């Protein structure tokens, strides 16, 4: 479904601020596969999602999605295939528009201008039915501005909008990190339900090891713009949060190993 081949992206090349954010990332994602991405801060997780979404073009490598080579597609063209939820609950929706208007935008996405449902009675009823499944009591507030909702409610709505048209790929970038624990839990539950129900091919970034082992069917750990571990099948099934933490600990140790430690090891290891 999604195929990344040796994807590279360097920010501010040949300047003192050069950052090699992606250094040859390759991933093959089968349809319906739910991949969790973990990694230290700045390891390139968000950059990877941005590269797929088309926030920028990659320097080299190819990106294929649902049979199309989308490497050179602009962001808005990819949006027809991709649903996306960010960490910030305020970024996925238009705050001054009502819930119904936002949903109408989502329902129309990827369709030629002027097509798609107008806000007639039948459509409003459909919105109400779908929103009821969130169990947040929002079905009676269709005409309230999104700006009046809590972070958790917004994130749930954003998720509903991002998956409204069953996208070929769903991108979630720490979409519960800015929420209080109870709302985060609600949104995660909803995420899991929607992805399972529609068998959505998903890339989800999280900092929670608990989420990483409880959700999805594959875990990729990134470090310095590369994939360090790719846990699938039995390796994935038996991974526990403490195993993932221990892998982070190894990364940290690796970073601290300098020439002095190398000399110490040469003196003391046998």
């Amino acid at each position, binding site marked *: 479904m999604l195929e990344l081949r040796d994807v590279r992206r360097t920010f501010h090349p040949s300047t003192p601020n050069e950052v090699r954010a992606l250094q040859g990332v390759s991933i093959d994602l089968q349809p319906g596969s739910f991949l969790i991405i973990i990694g230290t801060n700045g390891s390139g997780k968000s950059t990877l999602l941005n590269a797929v979404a088309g926030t920028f073009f990659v320097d080299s490598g190819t990106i294929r999605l649902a049979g199309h080579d989308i490497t050179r597609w602009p962001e808005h063209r990819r949006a027809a295939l991709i649903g996306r939820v960010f960490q910030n609950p305020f970024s996925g929706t238009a705050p001054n528009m009502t819930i119904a208007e936002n949903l109408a935008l989502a329902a129309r996405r990827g369709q030629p201008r002027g097509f798609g449902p107008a806000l007639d009675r039948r459509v409003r009823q459909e919105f109400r039915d779908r929103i009821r499944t969130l169990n947040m009591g929002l079905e009676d507030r269709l005409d309230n501005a999104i700006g009046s909702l809590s972070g958790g409610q917004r994130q749930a709505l954003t998720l509903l909008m991002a998956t409204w048209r069953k996208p070929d790929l769903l991108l979630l970038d720490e979409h519960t990190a800015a929420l209080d624990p109870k709302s985060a839990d609600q949104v995660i539950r909803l995420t899991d339900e929607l992805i399972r129900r529609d068998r959505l091919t998903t890339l989800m970034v999280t900092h929670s090891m608990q989420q990483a082992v409880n959700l999805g069917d594959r875990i990729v750990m990134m470090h310095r713009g590369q994939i360090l571990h790719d846990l699938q099948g039995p390796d994935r099934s038996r991974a526990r949060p403490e195993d993932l933490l221990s892998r982070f600990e*190894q990364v940290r*140790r*690796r970073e*601290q*190993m300098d020439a002095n430690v190398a*000399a110490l*090891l040469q003196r003391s290891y*046998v």
Partner: protein
Amino acid sequence: MEIQKVQQAELVELWLKGRLDAEWSEFVASAIDEVIRAGCHHVELHMGSVHYISSAGIRVLVKHHRALHGIRGSLSVVSPSEQVDGILRMVGLANIVKQARQAAKPVAPAATVREVHDGAVVLEVQPSSGATAMRVSVHGAPERVLLGGASAADCRTLQFPAETWGLGIGAMGSGYADCESRFGEFFALGGAAATLAPDGSQVPDYVLAAGSLQPTVQALTAIRGTGRFQDHGRFRASAESGGLALSELLESFARQCSAPTFAVALAAETGCIVGAQLTRSPALLGGSSLFEFPAVRDRMSFTTERGTERSTALLCGIVTREPSAPLRAHVRPVAEGSSLHAHIHALVLPYRPVQQGALDLGTAVRQFLESALPTSLLHLMADDRPYEGIGQTELFRGAYWLSPVERIEEGLP
């Protein structure tokens, strides 16, 4: 709930006042844990002023009674209130209730146990087992393997039945080809052998001798000792709360031991463990040195920060004042400023107190491995870098076994 702690010679009294219910049971449990972690295995709970105990409280009593009983310690409830006494009898725990005067006093150490105070180290020395000096063989060429890699010719099959110990670089499998990518540190003691595959999984695998099953290791380099240990006892730090640096303890053993070279095994409650591990099989070095920087980052892992977590570790190895061939190639200085050279591996397990009194090595090893899975296996070393160095492995207390080593043979390939 209020708890007052009274330290007696060989036991700790905890005087409880209040309700021992769900709300307070964890508080009491951690007070008991603290006593055990400080090295005391006999606990009396004075419960005359406790007028209510719920199932949550009973659970704490049962759990700690079992745990202490398992290491030949004891937990008793002394002179409980009528209410608590009644409940404990109803649930069948009358056996842990004692009246104040007849409270079980732990047996004093037998007169034959000698206590040695040696600087920061206190040793309780048990009578010698009468075993003769230990036979030790060394195998392989560590320098050549670590500086360039190995081939099938470096691999030898070593068995580790009871009354042997061993360490080095090895793996469990059918031979060199099978083990090529899995060679890492190995550890063998008391009828068990453990290996750590260098795949970052951090899960040592192990085999316990059983029936005709003998732990067998394919080794690239190894030191192997055969025979019973001669001396046995307990060690602890003389300071109440302090730990011992590994070199302090080894120096003290060296003073106890007549021979310049000795084999040592420990079952120890530890603080920080300082050591290194392979994260890539040296068989795959392909001619380059293991220690080459920066490639070493992908080949070895090293403790670079002092953890505070307590563990229990089994250690074994060899220590010498006079590193001469063929042992020389297999040992390194223990720490800066120490006259000793050593090679010691540690198999780390979750914290569990080490039983007091005389302890059979094979039984101890078996009990540890049956109670929990090992969490790590390391080559111990001191980090004496001038600024960032984190020092040495820290030991609090435990059991030791020592044997002088008279002759060291070069193992046949």
